[in-house]
């Protein structure tokens, strides 16, 4: 059984090393002997129904985000939502996260309508939230924390239909106010921790792979991997984050 990863708009939504997340999913499948395939889902392309196990979308600049928003509404959005309700996993970062909510309201110009996977909305903030992030999360592995880097001005607020991915102990998170970071709805994760979230947070990566496998077969358990280097990188990033804030 092959795990199929659908990379949404790889040429438009890939700022700050987002592809590190794809590499991590691919390698962690390969190291376990699980066949894996990456399908690029570009503008205009329709989703192959029932075939993609993990969707990924990164962040983009404003112009790209507008182009992608149109394609999501007109082409892929309804199918994406349906797949996630049927148990597909997803990781969406920054701009991708915002478009998976209800809407993004900029200071000026048109509101961008999202596809409502997450019960969440985003408004433009007047301060850019930049820096290292440490946040406690059930997906945080042995330390119970996830670590990453955020760089966003949008402020996202969650409703009752989803839960936060984590609670921030260093950094700003969703909106700098309520301490939440990211969102989870079923197998879908949205987050402001851009770029390479998964390499240093193998627990999050394995959550997605597990969801993907569970779609096909019940009771699948992932073989453990030697994560010594991953955890060292995680821990030293946590120490660094506390120092640089």
């Amino acid at each position: 059984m092959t795990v199929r990863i659908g990379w949404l708009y790889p040429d438009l939504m890939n700022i700050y090393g987002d592809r590190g997340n794809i590499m991590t999913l691919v390698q962690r499948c390969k190291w376990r002997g699980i066949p894996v395939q990456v399908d690029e889902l570009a503008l205009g392309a329709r989703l192959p129904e029932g075939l993609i196990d993990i969707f990924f979308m990164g962040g983009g600049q404003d112009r790209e985000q507008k182009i992608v928003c149109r394609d999501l509404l007109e082409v892929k959005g309804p199918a994406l939502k349906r797949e996630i309700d049927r148990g597909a996993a997803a990781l969406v970062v920054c701009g991708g996260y915002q478009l998976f909510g209800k809407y993004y309201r900029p200071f000026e110009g048109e509101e961008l309508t999202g596809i409502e996977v997450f019960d969440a909305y985003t408004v433009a903030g007047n301060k850019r939230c930049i820096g290292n992030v440490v946040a406690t999360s059930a997906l945080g592995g042995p330390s119970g924390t996830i670590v990453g880097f955020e760089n966003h001005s949008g402020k996202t607020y969650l409703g009752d239909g989803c839960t936060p991915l984590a609670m921030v102990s260093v950094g700003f998170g969703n909106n700098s106010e309520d301490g939440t970071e990211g969102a989870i709805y079923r197998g879908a994760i949205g987050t402001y921790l851009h770029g390479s979230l998964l390499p240093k947070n193998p627990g999050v990566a394995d959550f997605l792979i597990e969801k993907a496998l569970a779609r096909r077969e019940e009771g699948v358990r992932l073989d453990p991997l030697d994560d010594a280097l991953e955890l060292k990188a995680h821990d030293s990033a946590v120490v660094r984050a506390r120092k640089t804030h």
Partner: protein
Amino acid sequence: MRFATRTALLLGKTIGTASRAFKFGGGSTLPGRVARRLDPAFVSDMVKELPLGCVLITGTNGKTTTSALLASILDRAGMTPVHNRTGANLMAGIASALIREADSGGTLAGRLGLFEVDEAALPDAIAETAPRLVLVNNLFRDQLDRYGELDTLAAKMKKAIVTLDPSRTVALNADDPLVASIGSGLEQKVLYYGIDDQKYASDTMQHAADSKHCAACGGRLDYDYYLFGHLGRYRCPDCGASRPETDVAATHIEMLGMEGTRCTLRFPGGTCDLTIPVPGLYNVYNILAAMTASLALGVEPDEVLGAVEDFTAAFGRVERVQAGNRDIMMILAKNPAGFNEVIRTLTFAPGKKTVMLALNDNIADGRDVSWIWDVDFEMFRGRLADVVCSGVRAFDMALRIKYAGVGEMSLATEPDLAKALDAGLIAAGRAGTLYVVPTYTAMLDLRKTMVERGLVTPYWEDN
């Protein structure tokens, strides 16, 4: 000279002297910062003392190399430049260079201001120096946490360039679509340079590529080929914008690995063959940039070529250092595009290499290290004998190498730079070469270590 300017100059000079005497760091920005605080018009007043005016060099990659090369050309041509050669390229660095090169009466030791300028500081530098020539070499995503978006940055640059007197010149890299777009519709004289040889081109974009959309209409660009990141031959199918014809170009290129690059250059009125003693396609662009600028300033082609031939790499960009019976070759890599080019060069020559990768995340490096996932470390597959990862973010780098699947070599991780350097030298073996690829502040720290061991001289020993 105004009284305020004179006072600011004297104070700046005193601070510069003190900082050199007490060795608190070379004084490449502090004197200028203080002088500008005291007299906000300090730079615009001082540059009036330069009979040949000012030249500004900007772009993400190659500013320091290009301006160092241009400085040695101008020197040879008798147009002695006042140059911020330590790479301090914000307004304070420019002001400091003016202070260092002025006597206490305000007379400058040079006739032309040659300033390397940070991309984001270009509008201020244009306003304060009214340059006769502005050169933009390339625009890559470098540290977006500082600059915001590239399109916005380019738009700000253009807005400042438009304000220049129409008699001024703008030199642009034709192969970079975003940079070339700055030239469209300008009243000023525009010169384009680029590479007209596709021998080292590929038909897929390196991952670090940035500018994929037409700056004029937003359409997706069609590329005939790519040379270096998003640089290449392109056109927009929607509005018809395309890579401009070049005034100065490399028409034939042969890469000789670490030994350098051989190329044929075409310029108005002639062609010539040249061997560039430093490796990498990016250095061909730097040579073309310096050539275009110096020809625009009226330097004779023969003088340009003589100076280029004598040129050795600017501080810190590629450095060869002897350490006992081993060689260290240090090459700065501060962003994905530059790093890819370094890897391409290292893997071009045959043989497995011993490599030390040093990743810091200080402000000058960029706090965010996600960019290493945009570097194509996969090019190292099967080409490494040993690799040592070091710096503040040593474990992030080691993880990146692990996921790149580069093969069965030993992967050592040692955050301490001096210790990592020792480990790398041991791994390189007798008569071997250790290739060190650091980010900016890691490079500064490594130089300090090497100075302490008597291997190199400090770059601020200038006067």
